[in-house]
């Protein structure tokens, strides 16, 4: 079993240099398929014998992307486009792009014409999940993705491989949930930045490999005495909470992340694929119906505020920090209701603007300091 700090450092290194992770897999003779944020059928890539690798933007200077996207496109897509155009993703065999918001619809086309060296595979998830026909439709979308993946590998994915992949992914989900629970008892070791790295790194490892590392971390944590955190505790919600400087501001103010509802983090792991109920593709399609609380997936009733209130109560959190990715319109529609419902539940909430290309964090620092005093 690896040392706790060594394991953490390994995951942090992967987040800081995902390219090195990709090169490692390429050197092993594996093919890598990029998976655009926020949702992509990673399992199909995995079951096809390739490595799915998350594409969640990053800090860069936007140059070439400006020829494709206006300034008011979200920073994640701006960065993905820039990296695609400047060659940072060279080596990927393809990218999968979910057309799940208006900007992502366009990204399927911008990538197609702008980054011709890496083929784009578009997937359109159903939004009317109450319609029973949505499951068959999603299966057909998966089949379309599989055909394009088979063109990369030269062979079709087997049902056995998919079932094994689903088992691996469900085990990984369980492990990540177990980590979240263990982390909440060790907020001295699992700082906001460390917590984020453990979650985000899942996008840069083959999942069983990541599961093993995280299980080592959990075991390491369990060997330590439970920490009675004396500072403030918050729940993070939104698409993502990056870059690291933002997380450091939380730590600087004695704020720990007790739980999260981030699309990039816990939302990825809270819906398992059913173990029974049909073939692999059908079960994967049914998993889509289990996802909740994501602004990009249609749900009636604006339930996020209520869910967050429950999450805060369960985690003993003092408040919620809503991480608003700049120019993310699905999030902007949820924001007023989410804040209203939290206010009604007596839970303090502060919104901060997330921009991966940000160079100055003083506004966020002031906002967090004020919020901390409020708590």
């Amino acid at each position, binding site marked *: 079993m690896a040392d706790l700090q060594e394991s953490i450092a390994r995951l942090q290194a992967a987040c800081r240099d995902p390219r090195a992770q990709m090169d490692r897999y390429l050197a092993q003779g594996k093919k890598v398929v990029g998976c655009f944020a926020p949702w992509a059928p990673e399992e199909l890539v995995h079951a096809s014998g390739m490595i799915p690798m998350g594409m969640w933007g990053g800090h860069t200077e936007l140059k070439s992307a400006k*020829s*494709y*996207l*206006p300034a*008011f*496109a979200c920073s994640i*897509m701006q960065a993905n486009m820039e990296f695609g155009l400047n060659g940072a993703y060279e080596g990927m065999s393809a990218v999968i792009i979910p*057309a*799940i*918001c*208006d*900007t992502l*619809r*366009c*990204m*399927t*086309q*911008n990538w*197609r*014409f*702008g980054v011709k060296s890496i083929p784009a595979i*578009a997937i*359109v998830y*159903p*939004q*009317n999940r109450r*319609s*029973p*026909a*949505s499951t*068959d*439709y999603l299966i*057909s*979308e998966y089949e*379309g993705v599989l055909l394009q993946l088979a063109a990369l590998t030269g062979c079709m994915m087997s049902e056995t491989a998919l079932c094994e992949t689903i088992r691996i992914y469900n085990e990984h989900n369980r492990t990540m949930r177990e980590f979240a629970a263990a982390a909440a008892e060790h907020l001295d070791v699992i700082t906001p930045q460390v917590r984020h790295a453990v979650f985000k790194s899942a996008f840069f490892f083959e999942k069983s490999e990541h599961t093993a590392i995280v299980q080592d971390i959990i075991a390491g944590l369990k060997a330590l005495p439970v920490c009675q955190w004396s500072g403030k505790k918050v729940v993070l919600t939104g698409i993502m909470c990056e870059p690291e400087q933002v997380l450091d501001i939380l730590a600087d103010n004695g704020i720990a992340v007790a739980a999260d509802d981030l699309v990039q983090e816990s939302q990825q792991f809270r819906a398992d694929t059913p173990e029974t109920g049909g073939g692999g593709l059908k079960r994967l399609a049914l998993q889509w119906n289990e996802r909740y609380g994501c*602004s990009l997936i*249609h*749900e*009636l*009733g*604006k339930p996020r505020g209520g869910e967050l209130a429950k999450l805060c109560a369960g985690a003993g959190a003092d408040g919620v920090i809503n991480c608003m990715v700049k*120019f993310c*319109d*699905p999030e*902007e*529609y*949820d*924001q*007023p*209701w989410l*804040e*209203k419902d939290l206010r009604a539940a007596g839970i303090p909430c502060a919104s901060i603007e997330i921009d991966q290309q940000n160079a100055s964090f003083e506004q966020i620092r002031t906002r967090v300091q004020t919020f901390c005093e409020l708590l």
Partner: protein
Amino acid sequence: MSDTLNPTAAAPAQAAAAPAKPKRPKAKSLLMIGEQTNALFENARLAKERGEKVGWSASIFPQEIAETLGLNVLYPENHTAGIAARHQADPFLQECEGPMGYSNDLCAYAKLNLAYTAVLNGESSVELPDGGKMVKPDFLLLTNNICNQLTKWYENLARQLDIPVFFIDTCYNPMDYVTETRVRYVRAQIDQLIRDLCAFTGKTWDDERFKKVMEISQRNSYLWERANNLMDHKPAPIGGFELFNYMSAMVCNRGKESTTAIMEQLNAEMEQHIKEGTSTFPAKEEYRVSWDGIACWPYLSHNLRTLKQYGINMVASSYGKAWAIQYDDLDGMARAYCFASTNGDNASTMLSRRYEALTRMGCEGTIYHVNRSCKVMDCQMMEVQRQLSKMAGVPFTSFDGDQADYRNYSEAQFETRIQGLVEVMKQNKEAKSNG
């Protein structure tokens, strides 16, 4: 919209400058549009008074369903465009971005409508400039073929008003065609929606009535497309911006016989102009261009004044023809509504539709409206501009604007951009005439 948006009638500054020029009488078709729009709102009001359920609908929802059921339905996008065009948007934008807590980044149609809804719901005291003719809905009809923001906007309306949403998820088309699996999914949703809507409203579905409505709708789509295509005559029989006036007939009343009468009248008026070699375009047609994107409603008159100054007539638009929806059964309806809006189609489809319009209409340039409200239009516009300009060999320009938020436009920028486009079009024209 209760008022038509005849840009020639909406240019007071210009009218003041011109010495006692006799005002051109309004075309009969425009008067008919006014009557039809008034009837739409009045019928909804009366239905509400009778205790019947009234709906609000996304603009490219299969209108024929509500028409078959005899439901009164109003259209927030159309209504807010009218508010914006009449320069009445400001208090609603302030309300939405202030007390209601919405971001400035969002679609201005949504922002106006959410604030208007707050007034109807007793949560805001903003004065309604139209006296509340957009009566409070009892249900919502939603499709996302235009954009995903509509899905979120209607989610919020449903929560705000505590009313149901009847939703058809039309799915974006990354392929050049609508896949059969999409047709099956959308068809199943249409069938379910009809059942649910009947149960909710107490109405009964009548296949014969639907066939009749479908026939009317097809006739109207044909006539609308035909009118748009008549713009291929040189000079064009009307000023292209005038076609925006007729969109309410196609958006809100596609399945009605009153629309057939309006469209027939419009076609007849255009043919008369062609026969007589006249045009309603208020200047000599020097240049013919296409317009990409929704109208910049708050500055329609400034747009027209500027274009008129150079004799530029907008003879093709990527926008209006989205409502020329052709099909002949429910499967066809599913396919047609998946493919109606180029916002829901991939860049190849978008390019081929625009290229066809540019060449058919003999356009010499394209004006792209970088509509701050509409990411789905803007986020692939730059690539479309490059490819289309290369394919068609015509120059383009773009300007920053908004379909309803007056703050996102600069008159000086628009004028400079048009001036630049004219210089290139002029050079091209001269080069052509010099062989």
